[in-house]
């Protein structure tokens, strides 16, 4: 991955959208899910680092980027504002791991629940998932290349996988 190119960093419970060239990057996905959306025709992309599945569980002010059900519509809205067309947008997912076996029941399945929630929301708004690297016990760092929509998924023990 080229550090010299224009990389926009996306933090935990955060999202960003941009048009080409450049890359969107988010690091340290464990149970969180990195949702990459991309309009290949317009070369407009978006990346969200989603932490929790459902904003209805919030016990405080809702930050849209944190929840699957609010982050994805917000990302689509931002991309449309940049000129993306929803029916040209596809999704790639990474993350949603279960890194520890023995954490309490709620936290135990949070990775899986995040992935399920992301899939459900994408299905609802009609954006197809074209690639996934989810589950397992590993942390992941991802980059979306805005030039071609390639999604690079790296783990601690492996070279970047190209989705």
């Amino acid at each position, binding site marked *: 991955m080229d550090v010299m190119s224009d990389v926009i*960093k996306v*933090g*935990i*419970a*955060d999202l960003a959208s941009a048009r080409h060239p450049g890359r969107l990057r988010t*690091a*340290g*996905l*464990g*149970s*969180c899910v990195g949702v990459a959306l991309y309009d290949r025709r317009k070369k407009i992309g978006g990346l969200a680092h989603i*932490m*929790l599945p459902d904003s209805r*569980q*919030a*016990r*405080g*002010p809702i*930050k849209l980027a*944190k929840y699957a059900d609010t982050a994805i519509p917000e990302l689509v809205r931002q991309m449309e504002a940049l000129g993306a067309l929803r029916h040209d947008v596809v999704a790639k997912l990474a993350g949603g*791991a279960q*890194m*520890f*076996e*023995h*954490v*309490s029941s*709620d*936290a135990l399945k*949070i990775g899986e629940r995040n992935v399920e929630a992301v899939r459900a929301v994408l299905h609802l708004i009609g954006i197809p998932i074209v690639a996934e690297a989810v589950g397992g*016990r*590993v*942390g*992941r*760092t991802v980059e979306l290349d805005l030039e071609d929509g390639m999604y690079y998924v*790296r783990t*601690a*023990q492996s070279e970047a996988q190209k989705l």
Partner: protein
Amino acid sequence: MFDDHLTHWEEDVLKEIGNIGAAHAATSLSRLLGERIDMEVPSARLLDFSEIAEEVGEDHLYVATFLEFGGDVKGSFVWLTEPFSARQLLWALFQDRTLSGSDEESSNAFSELELSALQEIGNILAGSYLSALADLTGLSLYPRVPGIVFDMGMAVVTYGLLEAGHYGEHAVVIDAHLTSRDARYGGRFFLLPDPHSFRVLYHALGVYANGRDE
């Protein structure tokens, strides 16, 4: 409790918790290693989720022990050790290169057996930390079963933020750095109490009586 700042009293109390907990854990580690372990003065801060990457490195790898605790106070305990330090620990404890790896290159992977040994050390350190905290506060704290990975610190620490994530975008982090005299060992403890546990902690230690009018 869900405010966006800590009062001086709250910060002092949480620092003291970190101080006593981490000092006990450092003593345990020192006994295991037969070597003096120094501890920096712990910090207690409200950390924004966006700052976590800076704290532990974007995708920096650690041998990371994660453990939840329940009881009167709930939350998570994380022990982050650099891979080099983890090797040193294995070597110091077992005096056996077959367990601690024979060459430096192997430091980018740990066997199940090695991780299991390190997890046991993590369990001992967490136990020391939490029992010191229980003694200090008179509260009950029950450590749960630990887990260990050699992976991105950020991916691990995030598990300890999930509960706080329901309330906002920041969490109280009580953070203590440890090093051995010869700098062969370096590591770090994080205590991440769940948001509803602060009131219990503060009451147990008399903060509201002295510090903040409610």
